[in-house]
């Protein structure tokens, strides 16, 4: 039973959202990509907010009216997991099916063909890997025991994520071993091949030239 004050506080926080977050600048039609190397079955949440540069005021507008962001998520073998157009502010989620590098790209849908001098966008971005947002549930907790349960669930989630990363790390080390063994085998066999080419070609040269000189009556 949340009191009116708590509800107001919660709503106030929604409005405050990303203004204290970390941000960077991009050109209007520039695509910015982020690489996330994650194990399989990992949940990723990304929150972003875009602001547009106002040339007259020489400052960033509070929001970017009419501007949307294309969010594209591809795996390392170019399989597209998510490709959607969001508004100037939004949240995207996805779960990885296979372990590896996932590339998250953000691009605005600005229709300006030429980027005017000084025209840029400010993107606030927050990406969370492997954590569900349990604090909403914690805020609603009816009593302390429930809250303890939720917080323990958070810890358990953290542990599970660590275990997943460990398994992933083991797979990667196996990959690394295979690549190194491949290189080793390549070096060995190609060295053999080159030595045998040397010997065979040498014999061919000698025989051919000998026959040639005998035919020419020089020997």
């Amino acid at each position, binding site marked *: 039973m949340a009191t009116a004050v708590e509800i107001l506080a919660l709503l106030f*926080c929604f409005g405050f959202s990303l203004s204290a977050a970390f941000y960077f600048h991009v050109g209007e039609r520039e695509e910015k990509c982020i*690489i996330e190397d994650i194990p399989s079955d990992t949940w990723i949440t990304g929150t972003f907010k875009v602001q547009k540069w106002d040339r007259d005021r020489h400052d960033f507008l509070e929001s970017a009216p009419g501007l949307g962001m294309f969010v594209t998520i591809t795996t390392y073998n170019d399989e597209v997991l998510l490709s959607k157009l969001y508004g100037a502010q939004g949240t995207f989620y996805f779960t990885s099916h296979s372990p590896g590098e996932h590339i998250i790209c953000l691009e605005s849908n600005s229709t300006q063909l030429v980027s005017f001098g000084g025209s840029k966008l400010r993107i606030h971005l927050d990406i969370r890997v492997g954590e569900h947002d349990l*604090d909403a549930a*914690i805020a609603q907790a009816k009593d302390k025991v429930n809250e303890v349960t939720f917080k323990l669930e958070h810890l358990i989630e953290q542990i599970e994520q660590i275990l997943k990363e460990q398994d992933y790390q083991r797979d990667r080390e196996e990959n690394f071993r295979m690549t190194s063994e491949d290189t080793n085998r*390549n070096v060995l066999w*190609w060295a053999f091949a*080159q030595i045998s080419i040397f010997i065979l*070609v040498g014999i061919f040269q000698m025989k051919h030239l000998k026959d040639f000189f005998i035919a020419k009556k020089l020997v």
Partner: protein
Amino acid sequence: MPRWAAAAGRWGWRLPALLPEITFELPDNAKQRFYEDIAPGTACALEFQVITGGHYDVDCRLEDPDGKVLYKEMKTRYDNFTFTASKNGTYRFCFCNEFSTFTHKTMYFDFQVGEDPPLFPSENRVSALTQVESVSIHEALKSVTDYQTHVRLREAQGQSRAEDLNTRVAYWSVGEAFVLLVVSIGQVFLLKSFFSDKRTTTSRVGS
């Protein structure tokens, strides 16, 4: 919805640590700036590492809102810098790859702002034991995750070098074998061509 937005609703203004950690590609001759609004008195830590590309080095600079340079390193492979924000405002940090002409680099950084509040606020008296366990377990798990990230980055570096080596060995071996073959057979025919014109003169000398 960011985690701290909802949490703050119940216990007042309790902002947990922001930890943006990003792996991105820095093209050659480019620099990438990031900005962060920090309140004074917050303990912050910037850590970065170059994963692939060239000599695995990058320039890094961290400035406070007045433009004073707090940290500056040229051509570093990885580093960790902690500081406490003394002024209120936007702190900027920048990674430059301008010295590199054609290698673009993949790099990782994480910028921790503020300390995490304890999972249990002090007025919670469910159990003192639970409080200690949750706080220290949470901190321990966080440092485990941190170490795992370091291992993952180093492994990515090793993997990229191993793959590079493998491709290079394969291509150069094939190329070398091919060149060997072509040159040896070419030698024979070249040598033969030296003797083909002099056939008439040789026979005259012989007789």
